């Protein structure tokens, strides 16, 4: 019986020009989005590769220079773009792709592609994930809004009941038929994955296959939730017209309005510091208390001097077997690192609180939960960026220390006059980055997974009970 219902529904869909038109447009947009995503990721990866090479070459050939001057010039860490960003670029364009690893200062990531974007890109971005998040539910609504209500309006529900079809069979048959049509969007996703495999990902995401499987499962839950909810609403309301209006209203609210509103509330309740204030705090709190003229700063430097004189058992700086300027520079770095940790933890904390506030709204918008899951698995979310930024910062500290050590150990009494040359620069290591494991990623999104699962189960129950309810109503009528 279920098979018969599926065939009947599919036949009806095939005859409905509106559905074919929406399907065709969505599919075309999906392909365009996949190509657009591939083109963007491919060019970002190519540009990154070139920048990494250029950074190394420039560093290696800077000639004679004091290691501390070199530490000011320093290196850059370039964030790799994951291949799965072809499917879901997440926050990639909004977070900066290069971090300057200079001495004395922890810089935020700069060069955000959103700054080069046209104004209207803020409305909508053509990506495969966006197409599925926005248009797949709409297609589901279009397919099933009239599913039960129209049967009742036309009087065919009574016929179905009289032929002995149980409500669950009707529900399952209609749901499967609708999902089969939505599955026709799969070629655009396959295209995105195929194109993603064709990018030059230097820093491969661990467990890409598993990530991809999880992404597919998450989108299936999401689309299933909308499909079931649409059947449920269609079964509960008197007219298909009402079902359509309610469902489109719900779609617009949960897919378009709530995500924007939620982030707005999140940033109002947990604001990030103003850029100028943050920059001023970084400089003032990391540098002045060590290098400034205050009593506290002078005492701090005196303590460093006393400690190093004691360690080497000498009375005067001039008698030290090391370069004291380099030693003092390293001491200042270690002092500043604590400040950077505190200030950046506050900054990341503000972002993460925003993210948690937004997550609360996923109770009314499954799109938010899906967006978190999708971008996290694609390696393009906030966590991925923080992981990269923190890794870059650890490298910066080691790298600056390496340069200071060069000055300390080999600079003798030359102070800032000590020079290193290309032989030394060419031995210095590169920043090497390993993205987080899938276990770490999943531990950040388990709440989103539960919420999405909750949405799918609730929608399933609404649909299942709704169809039973409509059968009872019809029997009583």
């Amino acid at each position, binding site marked *: 019986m279920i098979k018969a219902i599926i065939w009947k529904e599919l036949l009806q869909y095939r005859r409905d020009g509106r559905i074919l038109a929406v399907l065709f447009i969505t599919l075309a*947009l999906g392909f365009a989005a996949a190509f657009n995503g591939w083109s963007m990721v491919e*060019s970002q990866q190519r540009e990154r590769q070139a920048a990494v090479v250029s950074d190394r070459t420039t560093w290696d050939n800077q000639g004679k220079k004091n290691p501390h001057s070199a530490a000011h010039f320093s290196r850059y860490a370039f964030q790799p773009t994951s291949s799965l960003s072809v499917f879901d670029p997440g926050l990639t364009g909004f977070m900066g792709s290069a971090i300057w690893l200079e001495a004395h200062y922890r810089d935020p990531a700069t060069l955000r592609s959103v700054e080069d974007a*046209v104004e209207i890109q803020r*409305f909508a971005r*053509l990506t495969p994930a966006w197409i599925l998040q926005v248009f797949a539910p709409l297609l589901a609504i279009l397919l099933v809004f009239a599913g039960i209500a129209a049967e009742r309006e036309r009087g065919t529900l009574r016929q179905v009941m009289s032929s002995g079809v149980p409500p669950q069979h009707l529900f399952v048959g209609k749901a499967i038929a609708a999902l089969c049509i939505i599955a026709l969007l799969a070629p655009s996703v396959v295209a995105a994955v195929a194109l993603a495999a064709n990018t030059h990902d230097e820093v491969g995401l661990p467990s890409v296959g598993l990530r991809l499987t999880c992404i597919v499962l998450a989108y299936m839950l999401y689309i299933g939730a909308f499909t079931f909810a649409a059947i449920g609403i269609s079964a509960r309301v008197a007219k298909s017209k009402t079902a359509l*209006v309610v469902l489109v209203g719900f779609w617009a609210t949960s897919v378009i309005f709530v995500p924007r509103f939620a982030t*707005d509330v999140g940033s109002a309740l947990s604001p*990030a510091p103003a850029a100028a204030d943050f920059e001023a705090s970084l400089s003032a709190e990391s540098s002045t208390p060590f290098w400034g003229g205050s009593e506290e700063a002078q005492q701090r430097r005196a303590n460093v001097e006393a400690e190093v004189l004691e360690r080497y058992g000498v009375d005067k700086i001039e008698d030290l077997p090391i370069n004291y300027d380099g030693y003092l520079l390293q001491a200042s770095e270690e002092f500043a690192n604590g400040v950077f940790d505190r200030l950046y933890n506050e900054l990341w904390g503000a972002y993460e609180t925003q993210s948690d506030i937004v997550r609360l709204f996923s109770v009314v918008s499954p799109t938010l939960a899906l967006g978190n899951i999708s971008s996290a698995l694609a390696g393009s979310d906030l966590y991925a960026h923080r992981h990269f930024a923190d890794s870059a910062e650890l490298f910066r500290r080691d790298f600056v220390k390496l340069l200071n050590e060069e000055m300390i150990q080999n600079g003798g009494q030359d102070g800032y006059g000590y020079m290193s040359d290309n032989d030394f620069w060419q031995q210095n290591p590169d920043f090497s980055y390993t993205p987080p494991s899938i276990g770490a990623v999943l531990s950040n999104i388990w709440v989103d997974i539960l919420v999405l699962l909750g949405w799918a189960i609730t929608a399933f129950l609404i649909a299942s009970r709704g169809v039973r309810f409509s059968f009872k109503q019809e029997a009583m009528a």
Partner: protein
Amino acid sequence: MSVQAITAQEKRALKSEPMQLFLLVAFLLASLYAVLQGSAYRQAQVDVADSFTAAQEDRNTAWRDRLVAVENGTTAPEEDRWAGLAMDVSFPATISPGPLSDLAHGVSDVKPATSRVSLWRSVDRLFGNYQVQSPIDTAAGAFDLAFVIIFIMPLLMIALSYDVLSEDRELGRLGLLLSQPISVRQLVTARLKVRFGAVAAIVLIASLVGLFAGSAGQDIGTRLPFMGLWLLVAAAYFLLWTATIVWAISLNLKGETTALLLAGLWIVNGLVGPASLSAAAESLYPTPSRLAFLSEAREASAAAYKSQADIMQGMLLDHPDLTAENYSIPEYIRTAFLVTKTVDDSVVPVLSKFDDVQAERRRFLSKLQFAAPSVLTLQAFNLAAGTNLERHIAFEKSVRDFKQTIMESVEGKVLVGERLSLAEYDALPRYNTQNPSVSSVLGSVALPILFLLALSVFLGTIARSNLDKLQNHLRET
């Protein structure tokens, strides 16, 4: 039933029908929320600009006081050799918040708003580390009044009106209604006047609340002309949607088909159109690689550092007047100046390329924006609000030009190692913020407004003709 009776009935329904009331109250709350969050946003913009300028002015005052002390003999020149150091000249440059930035944030949340123009910074670093806004917030976009008007308002209008005629027809009441001295056109007009009147009133109230709430200390009289333009744009967009809805109603389709048609238009206008246009603009006119630009700047900096002696020699050959031997100022200052100048010379052409690409994109979009009224309206709103991309790009360029002017003015003093005199310092130009003028904004938004109005008239005329035909058809049947 007369037109007055229909109007009175509609007014009663507005107050008593729960769904209509809920939608209107929700829209009012969303509008007021948008306005109030916008006023907080604008206040924060003003505070950031003010505190930044104040901090820079304090710094400059302290710098100037030291120079005054040397010139009037309070401090001996050898006691403060850094007083009046030309290389240390710096001035604040800020872009003033747009006159209505509270109502349409535009690109003001991702573009730099302040700069400390210092000779120590090459032009690629003039704007400091401003990229600390939350990426979550930036990616979602603002929930401002422009968003509410462009996205939520049309959907509300559709929900309130899609069955304005079809419901009566489907319930078999239309014939009865039209047996009264009232035409179809009058019936539709009377009903929409009340329903859309309520929507328009909410937009007007929200805009007026915004005018006062978002002033952030600015004179209301200054904001008023821009508000006039804003309301003209909003009115034109509102009229376009009114005409579109009346046209859809006049097609005399089933209620659900009318709703589907209008929802489809809303999606194409608000989502598919902008996403496709922005993807097309960015694919056809790709910006040069920011990473390549960064590499170029670094290579130039490293090369300049290595060949500083040659650069200095070249400079002295060009300017024999700069051979004064007053090098009480450490050499690294001249080196830094020359390196920065060389980097500037190298990166300014690349930055100009970015500007050129943006200009090409804008030219492209200025033609294609007519394909999607939402794009047209957003750009017009941003223009009226002073948060458009063009203004921000012009700000960045003007800051670069300003730095060039300052650099040329003090170049000789830096190279020779002489201090600036007080008169010379006071004669240096200061950065002047460019505010958008009402006439220039009017010139830019006039065509979009006229186009929206023309499209409204076109659709309205067709709708009128359709409704008249429907009237005749109903009379005949």
